[in-house]
């Protein structure tokens, strides 16, 4: 596969930085909730770090993403500042959405994070519209719609992929198949690979090891290039594994213990870290320094968030419509 795109050294390090950021942010999120410093609905992306990290290095701030309630990895990889994220999930006025959206609705157009939805399957119809806008303007931007394997079974998936294919929209549908739709295993809800469904709409569909940064990068860069060139959408099924239950506090008794242990033993973050050092791309010192900087940034973001003000009740009347309500 000589024509496959390979990330250069700097890009590999950047992919790792984003993965390390997601992992560290997830660990801190769970810790802060456990400590009782923050109450929020939390959907851990742990185990799925590679997918948005390897995709987003192929995107610019002008490209759009739509993501879901399990979306902090997508948002951070796309460049969402930690302080804005933490203040939002803490419900503070300094958050991305003044605390009015919360963890399931983080929005940050400055970095192209246009929609975060709490409704399974709803990224795809809206992503089409963003992509339609780019097509009309000819601005060369692409839109990435993220969703889980569970969303592949909702009607919006079919409607959206069909429309995107017919209209040749510059959109990339990224199914993060973490084997679980809430509490139910994927193989209990579908007889086919998600990627195979692309054939039904006449678009390329590819299943990729979503925990392999090189594979993920190559496939994403090809799909993004296709979209930018006006050649239409691609469906990517990125195989991964959700390390924890559906939502924080879920005891995940339904998850097979051996499978989970196997997945955790193959944790993609330390695996890629070791690979970078082994291949001479990065030194232990460089990565340790990077990780320390991330921890420091998270420290600052958490403290900033918790010290920020809550929004005033006047916000109930604002942003419902353009004009403030009486």
């Amino acid at each position, binding site marked *: 596969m000589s024509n496959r795109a390979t990330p250069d050294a700097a890009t590999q390090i950047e992919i790792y930085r984003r993965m390390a950021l997601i992992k560290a942010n997830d660990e801190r999120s769970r810790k802060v909730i456990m400590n009782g410093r923050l109450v929020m609905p939390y959907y851990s992306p742990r185990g799925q770090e590679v997918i948005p990290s390897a995709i987003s290095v192929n995107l610019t701030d002008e490209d759009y993403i739509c993501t879901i309630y399990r979306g902090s990895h997508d948002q951070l990889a796309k460049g969402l500042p930690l302080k804005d994220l933490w203040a939002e999930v803490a419900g503070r006025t300094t958050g991305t959405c003044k605390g009015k959206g919360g963890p399931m609705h983080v*929005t940050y157009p400055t970095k192209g994070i246009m*929609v975060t939805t709490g409704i399974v399957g709803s990224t795809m119809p809206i992503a089409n519209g*963003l992509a339609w806008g780019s097509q009309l303007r000819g601005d060369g931007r692409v839109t990435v719609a993220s969703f889980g394997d569970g969303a592949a079974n909702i009607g919006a998936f079919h*409607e959206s992929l*069909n429309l995107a294919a017919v209209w040749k929209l510059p959109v990339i549908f990224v199914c993060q198949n973490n084997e679980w739709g809430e509490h139910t295993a994927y193989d209990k809800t579908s007889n086919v690979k998600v990627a195979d469904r692309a054939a039904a709409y006449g678009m390329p569909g590819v299943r990729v090891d979503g925990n392999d940064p090189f594979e993920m990068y190559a496939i994403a860069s090809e799909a993004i290039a296709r979209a930018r060139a006006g050649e239409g959408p691609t469906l990517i099924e990125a195989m991964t594994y959700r390390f924890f239950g559906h939502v924080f506090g879920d005891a995940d008794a339904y998850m097979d213990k051996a499978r989970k242990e196997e997945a955790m033993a193959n944790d993609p973050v330390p695996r890629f870290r070791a690979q970078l050092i082994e291949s001479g791309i990065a030194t232990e010192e460089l990565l340790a320094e990077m990780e320390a900087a991330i921890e420091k940034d998270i420290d600052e973001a958490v403290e900033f968030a918790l010290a920020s003000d809550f929004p005033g009740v006047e916000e109930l009347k604002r942003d*419902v419509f353009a004009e403030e309500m009486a």
Partner: protein
Amino acid sequence: MNAQSNVKAAKANILQAINAAIADAMEADDNVIALGEDLADPEEGGVCGVTKGLSSRFGEHRVRSTPISEQAIIGAAIGASLVGFKPIAEIMLMNFTTVAMDMIVNHAAKLRFMSGGQTHVPIVIRTMTGTGFASGGQHCDYLEAWFAHTAGIKVVAPSSPKDAYGLMRSAIDDPDPVLFIENLPTYWSPAEAPEKGHRVPIGKANVLSEGSDVTIIAYARMIQEAMPAVAKLKEAGISAELIDLRTIAPWDQETVLKSVGKTGRAVIVHEAVTPFGAGAEIAAVLNEQLFGKLKAPVKRLGGAFCPVPFSKPLETAFAPQTADIVAAAEALAKS
């Protein structure tokens, strides 16, 4: 417009007025785009031809026929609106909005609030409905109360060509999502034609006839039932004030309260079923604001609380008629 046509006022029907409003908006602003089932000219410009001519004039890139995929239609409109377009999405029939409720209610209506004002969704959702064409239970419901009950979306329902044009232009101008309800049986009724550029402010009712004994509040096709009722009441010596609400959300409380404050009696008429309908909200506000001034309990007239029936006599009996309005107003006037 030349002098001769000024003498005899130009006529147009609602269908033509909506078509003209969209065309004028598209001409004025390249960001106005339209999508929906059968919308473009190769598909005959919509099932009733409301959008006929638009794709030929502005191109199929701006006026697009879609698959029969209501979620995808509203989703595409939302997405394009987030990046500066002003999409007009057609949902062929109001009952079909039910398959796009997630996009309309969870997304179009809420993204401005949930994003803390960073994004907004300036879309117009055109939809058609109304009894009278023997369509049965799934093609002619009035579901406006569902949307009026959702924070973040505006709902309008014009009853004349002028208002249809003016409200459509205002809906396209509006920075928030607007549900624009069209009535099928009255599409082709000719009346005074709108002037190019005319605007009807959203949230502003229209007092169609002034009176002192009772206020009739109606909208959409019910105006056609209420107009003759006003004349009949006059013959019976009852002076009725008729208000065309035009906008259901946010409704014009000022105009309605002023009128009912004067008459002390109110009949609210809509084609939607009565329980939990727009009339219930209006009646509640009238009671809250005018309790001591009301001379009689507020009366609601709405569709029967059943699915719209097919059989002609049943369908006719389903929605309020002129005689019902007259009877209700007379009963109130006696109290």
